[in-house]
């Protein structure tokens, strides 16, 4: 089935995520981040952070709910069983610390078809509760066998 490009430009409702200290530690441990600023509050403060600070890639934790809604949207029409994560880009702004309330939004920026594969590109943006941008993400998912 050829891809439908009708959902290009569609935006999704913003999601909110409150960053917890133990969640930062759990994530840091899972990816092997040993830097003390992700585990020890005093070390984080000594390095100039207001609280325990998240590793850059922690952005997947707080922005995924917004992007997940976009990927699963019936108007976008992704065959989930045939989908692979093709590529990812993040651009980081202000660091994210425990206690931050992060608001994330997502939209569809591109749907195209090449060599029998569908390319679905989503963009996400996340801001902290002071209105500062903390990350922008570009998520590329590839669906095999679309034509």
């Amino acid at each position, binding site marked *: 089935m050829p891809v439908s490009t009708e959902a290009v430009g569609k935006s999704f409702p913003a999601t909110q995520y409150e960053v917890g200290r133990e969640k930062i530690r759990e994530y840091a*441990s*899972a990816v092997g981040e040993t830097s003390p600023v992700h585990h020890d509050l005093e070390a984080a403060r000594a390095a100039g952070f207001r609280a325990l600070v998240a*590793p850059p890639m922690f952005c997947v934790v707080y922005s995924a709910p917004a992007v997940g809604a976009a990927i699963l949207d019936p108007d976008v029409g992704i065959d989930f069983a045939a989908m692979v994560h093709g590529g990812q*880009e993040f651009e*980081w702004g202000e660091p994210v610390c425990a206690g931050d309330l992060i608001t994330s939004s997502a939209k569809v920026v591109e749907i195209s078809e090449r060599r029998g594969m569908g390319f679905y590109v989503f963009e996400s943006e996340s801001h902290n509760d002071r209105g500062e941008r903390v990350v922008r993400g570009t998520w590329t998912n590839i669906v095999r066998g679309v034509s």
Partner: protein
Amino acid sequence: MSLEGLDEGAELPELRVTPDKYLPNRYAGASGDFNPIHIDPEFARQVGLPGVILHGLYSMALVARAHTHAVGGDPRSLARLRVQFRGMGMPEQEIVIQTKVVERTEHGAITRSEATQGENRIIRNGEGELRA
């Protein structure tokens, strides 16, 4: 943060990590991504995979760590990272991450990186930007 020594052509310290059998489960819990291809061996085999595969974003997190640790571990030092996921990553096999500075800019350094498991390139065309 100091980017001293990271001149064009310099290599960042190589990162070698062997994720254990249950790493994908822990990463699923930590990240919230419970796609069964990462945690359910039976499901993974039913969809034609040899077994559970690593989350691409886990492998990307290792590439990010190779960058921040090269400059002292400060998370603010990584300004941007872009990767392409190709061959699937497997638990219980060593991942090798190699990163090279390809350009020095006024306030930072541009890198290229790759993550491999043996001959299998699980991340390629990684492009990063470190900032001082």
